């Protein structure tokens, strides 16, 4: 891991309140291991907002890293005002990666809302490795989608209000694809209610599943002990010393669904 002052190549709004930023970050790329990893961004040099913001890597190639973020509050609003040519300090790459997607499974990639970036990154890796897969992207309405519904090419959109793609949640297409395919494996990232539903489904139907979870982080490197999630599997070897909790920053953010519990 390293701290790098990265040059902003572009910062554009790709859907309503959803922004994509490309960074020139050769240092981060030199240590990057794969989709699921994140960077911790210092949005401003002043101490008005002391903590960095963890952001999943949405793409990593040719010395460039991208993130996709939604404007939630002050900090993400400040981030959206950054112009190409500005510098921004990033710490990373941090965390673990999705695994097994290239191990003779049929990956079903599921991204919901702001959880989409690592899933898009994993999709790129599947494409590079020529691995057949389906991506399912959930949102509240069509305004939040910036990728087109394209079932023929295994890109399925859902919206809660039916304004684009399939109406309803991601659970319907997940269930359908799993019944169609051999050796399905779910990889998901999104809001907690979505991850809870996918975890319950995967355990009930015995489908191998990896979830990338979000947590409020203080440091991203294991110092503050802030970003805990309850573990199911106390035997699993992890970087942190806990029995009951796992640290999302250094043990995660990607977990097998059976290994964690939501509160």
């Amino acid at each position, binding site marked *: 891991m*390293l*701290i790098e002052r990265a040059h902003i190549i572009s910062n554009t709004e790709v859907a309503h309140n959803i922004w994509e930023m490309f960074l020139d970050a050769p240092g981060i790329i030199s240590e990057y291991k794969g989709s699921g990893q994140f960077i911790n961004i210092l949005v401003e040099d002043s*101490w008005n907002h*002391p903590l960095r913001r963890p952001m999943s890597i949405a793409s990593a190639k040719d010395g460039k890293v991208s993130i996709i973020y939604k404007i939630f509050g002050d900090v993400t609003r400040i981030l959206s005002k950054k112009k190409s040519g500005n510098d921004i300090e990033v710490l990373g790459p941090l965390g673990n990666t999705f695994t097994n997607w290239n191990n003779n499974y049929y990956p079903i990639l599921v991204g919901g809302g702001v959880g989409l970036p690592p899933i898009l990154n994993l999709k790129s890796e599947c494409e590079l490795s020529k691995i057949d897969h389906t991506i399912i992207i959930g949102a509240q309405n069509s305004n939040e989608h910036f990728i087109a519904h394209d079932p023929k090419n295994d890109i399925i959109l859902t919206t809660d209000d039916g304004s684009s793609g399939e109406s309803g949640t991601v659970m319907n297409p997940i269930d359908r694809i799993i019944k169609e395919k051999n050796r399905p494996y779910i990889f998901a990232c999104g809001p907690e209610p979505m991850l809870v539903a996918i975890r319950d489904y995967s355990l009930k139907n015995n489908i191998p599943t990896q979830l990338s979870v979000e947590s409020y982080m203080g*440091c991203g490197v294991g*110092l503050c*002990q802030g970003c*805990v999630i309850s573990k199911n599997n106390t035997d699993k070897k992890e970087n942190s010393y806990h*029995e009951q909790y796992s640290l999302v920053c250094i043990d995660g953010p990607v977990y097998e669904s059976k290994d964690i519990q939501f509160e």
Partner: protein
Amino acid sequence: MSNLEVSIGNITFKNPIWVASGTFGYGTEAPDLIDVNKLGAIVTKSITREPREGNPPPRIVETPSGMINSIGLANIGVKKYIKEMLPIYEDLSTKIIMNIAGTDIDEYIEILELMENQSSSITGYEINISCPNVNKGGMEFGIDCDMTAKLTEELRSRTDRLIIMKLSPNVSDIVSIGKASQDSGADAVSAINTVVGMSINANTGKSNIFTTYGGLSGPAIKPIGLAAVNKLYKDLSIPIIGMGGIVSSTDVAEYILAGSTSVQVGTANFRNPGTGEDLIDMIDTYVADSNWKSLVEMIGKVEIHN
């Protein structure tokens, strides 16, 4: 390099920049981002008799120019600390101060005795009598002069290593607790621990911290820390180790002028674990560019308007 050496008790530290307990783990977590051997000292995470998992999430939230934490003293327990961490510390050239927390006097004594029965290169102990995040935590000690005096005496009689009592700002009179520590044999006091705080999400109506209240830290509490250090400096003869919102060399200078002999960097480590190392170079430049002959000369020399 200017002379940055400072002394506490009979120990000389190569510089006054330490990292604060609970903000730097066990000192080994971020080797890529800092050369810990440059630090004046590492104060390791609070250790209790038994391992502790800590509080349920959410444990952390950012606040204006600060943050609130309620980790709940998550730690590996003293036995694992002795077995796994002490051997690592033998190879470090920085000084290690072990922070100890307990729920009653017997727990502090037991941990200290276990440590004293080991051969180790630990320089001293910082005694957490002021963590606000644990039910029955050391808080009763930290707000009561008699309890503080008794605890300090008991520990003093069991070790020749440094004893530093870490004081809470969440009291009506921090100086009386400091004096009780001094009169009972403490080598130094450190101040301040975090300030009790709360954060609420108005959109959801929920508290942002599982335990409702947590410890506020960061630049938001620097004025509180400076006032505490200066009040202690006026009434105590033992050294004061200042902390609370230190992020820059001017913050370090302010704490030294207020009366600190050393300082601890805390919340800034979460933003950049290398902050302590950076501050050593920056304070060196600060002293060299100033009219002060050394850092020690600056201690407590703030000019007062009357």
